[in-house]
């Protein structure tokens, strides 16, 4: 399950570069999570997106 801390997000857009089908930017330049539970085929890109966020605004937790 993906979540974002919008107070931390600065709109670097690394997430969108890595996983464009999962992340977008809203009109305020903040991350917009399009797919909170991405397809398994997307997970490598999503993990890269999360780890490459310069302000650590994204987190990925196992779905309970």
């Amino acid at each position, binding site marked *: 399950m993906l979540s974002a801390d919008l107070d931390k997000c*600065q*709109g*670097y*857009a*690394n997430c*969108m*570069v890595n996983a*464009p089908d999962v992340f*977008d*930017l809203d009109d305020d*330049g*903040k991350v917009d999570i399009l797919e909170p539970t991405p397809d398994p085929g997307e997970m490598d890109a999503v993990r890269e997106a999360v780890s490459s966020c*310069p*302000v650590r605004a994204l987190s990925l937790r196992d779905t309970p």
Partner: protein
Amino acid sequence: MTATTNHDHIEQSMQSGWQLPAELYADPTYYALERARIFDHAWQYVCRADQLQNAGDFVTTTLGDTPVVITRDREGALRGHVNVCLHRLHPVAEGAGCKKILQCRYHGWTYGLDGALKSAPRSQQEPDFDKSSMKLRNVSVGMLGDLVFANPDPDAAPLLEYAAPAPDLLEKLEIGLDKWEHTGTFAYDVPANWKLFTENALECYHCALVHNTTYGNAFDTDSESYICDNYEHVATQVAPVAHAPSSEGRPADSLAGFRMLFVWPSTFVSVDDYAGTVARVQPTGPQSCRFVVDTFARPGVDKAILDEWLSMYDATFAEDKIVVAGQQAGYNSGRVAQGRLMTTSESSIAMFQRRTWRAIHSEAERT
């Protein structure tokens, strides 16, 4: 720099068969003028339409001194932007590909495919930072047949107006690359002024001698057979096949032959019965240029014939590179102020030089 002071004399002499002053091919002052007055305002080939087919597709290039990125935006429109971030002037895109956004990888300023600034990290801490007013600078974009052109000038006249009657000529001469396969991109670094390489490709007077076993053997380059026509910004060449590839079963006179369209200042599009090329001469210095050629295979062409024909073109361009490099020393010498043109065989050079002279000297085109 003296040629401008003899403006009227030179213009008259060019009408009677004399060429552009030699110093225009050697002097860095003119090179700077040409970049500002020609390449900053000219339509130039960027890529094929199929490279920008889907939303998010982008292609980068440099037109004169202007780095450019062309995108297909989310609404399906072609957009042209100066590929320079509004922050620290780093490129916002590199190479080619498909992306939903253009992210400058230096500080992370991120633009939509339409060029609008979408985010700038830490901008909320910045007083008076009006993101909505910030947009990548525009360049003009146009389509000619299956090809995408761009012009660094955002207020340029439309491509189809500038290049008239190119669409009709492409149809009449059957110069179209739809469904043709892109087989490669080749670059020739030429130690000569960009005009020398361009002019060389605008005449085939030299073909019998320089390309005796290559282009001049493949096509009939006699003055009666090799047809050159000229328009304001456009020139064409048509030549019958003289010697078809060795494994071609059809007689040479049943083949369509070579057809080429030139768009001033530096774009060439050509097709024959087997191969096609789209090429651009890019100035890289007062006495150097780069000739970049996209090559294409006609649908269904025999692979062996295609390889033979593309090798013939490659050898032809290599021969051209040698002769224009030889010319450069002559242009540098200052001992021949203006060469004499062969106005019937080299009519397209006359067209090119008239247009180039006008661009360098026209008040309207001064920046």
